[in-house]
């Protein structure tokens, strides 16, 4: 008599634990939304989308599609990439609200702005 009961209680415990874990996961999902992301393509010596508006906390990824290297340099010193050769990427997560102008330090006529809103 005791053995089936034990098994049952073990199963119940597993179920309860699993339920707890699932609810924890779902709570976490609700509390922390998937991080927002945005992309800026570089091509023909231009930032294809020169002005991008994003929400606070967004990670922006720049990708160099040119055969010539470029850099991503904040006008105010907030971020600065290493040199990006063809296909290389640079990411930066914006943790403050504001307008962030940037340019390519090799080809400074290439400019863009990330607008970060709350």
């Amino acid at each position, binding site marked *: 008599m005791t053995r089936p009961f034990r098994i049952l209680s073990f199963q119940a415990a597993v179920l309860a634990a699993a339920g707890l874990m699932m609810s924890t996961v779902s709570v976490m999902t609700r509390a922390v939304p998937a991080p927002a992301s945005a992309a800026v393509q570089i091509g023909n010596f231009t930032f294809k989308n020169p002005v991008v508006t994003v929400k606070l906390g967004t990670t922006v990824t720049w990708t160099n599609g040119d055969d010539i290297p470029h850099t991503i340099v904040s006008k105010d010193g907030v971020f600065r990439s290493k040199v990006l050769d063809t296909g290389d990427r640079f990411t930066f997560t914006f943790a403050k609200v504001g307008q962030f102008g940037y*340019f390519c*330090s090799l080809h400074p006529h290439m400019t863009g702005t990330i607008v970060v809103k709350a």
Partner: protein
Amino acid sequence: MSGIEEDRRDFLKCMAWAGTGALFAFSGGVGSSMGLDQALAAPLRRTAAKPFTFVQLSDSHIGFNKPPNADARATFREAIAKVKALSVQPDFIIHTGDVSQLSRDEEFDDAEQMLKAAGLPVFFVPGEHDMLDPDGGKAFLNRFGKGSKGAGWYSFDLNGVHFVAMVNVADLKPGGMGNLGAEQLKWLKADLAGHSSSTPIVVFAHIPLWTVYAEWGWGTDDAEQALKLLARFGSVTVLNGHIHQITQKVEGRIAFHTARSTAFPQPAPGTAPSPGPLRVPADQLHEMLGITDAIFVRGHDRIALIDSTLAA
């Protein structure tokens, strides 16, 4: 395409746009051009001092390996072989920047080793591709700019000619073009002050010191201030690279000239959506790469610039 664009293009063509051997000579500040054949046939007038010559190499982009040139090292080696084959051996070489593609040590190393084969002194200025190490140009300066000032500028006198090496690829401003900066302009003023107006001057820098095409950043924002300081001299030659094609122009007594690259050509201004490597067929590449030979004929106060391609 607008009428203005068309006019501009025709005008640029008139500036001996893609000549495969244009010669540009000037005397007393008045420019005149003639064909390469004539120039080669003309005997150099030997006066008291022997004529001296130097060669300009530019935009070797060692490390570049994409269309239209899978091996920029090979074409640089060919350019150096062409220098060695010149009938009158130059006294020295100037390299007007973009020695490397990405400022990597091995790229600088290879360029240095290959240039050693020429057995000649080499004077450098950096291009923007030579400023890409984490320290923003130190790797280049430590190797090629010892004894220079600021971001790599300096001057020297040879055979009565005053050479000024300028840097317009450092600390570039958002939205701008090439930039010399106040510190370098101050230095230039002091540097030129000690020279009489009859001294022939050769200025070399990477990005053109006149606006070739602002839309592509092909110019130098504060070049006008440098040109003002140079205006009193009877003979000024400005040699640049960066745009990978020949352009020339005379303004007052200043003659401007840009050299071909040894790595890859770029489109003529406004003829493509952007600058960048022009993807020409393999059998045309060598016709679009080259070197520039500068010949001083003493007593003439006159400099001839002869561009020749890597073809043939």
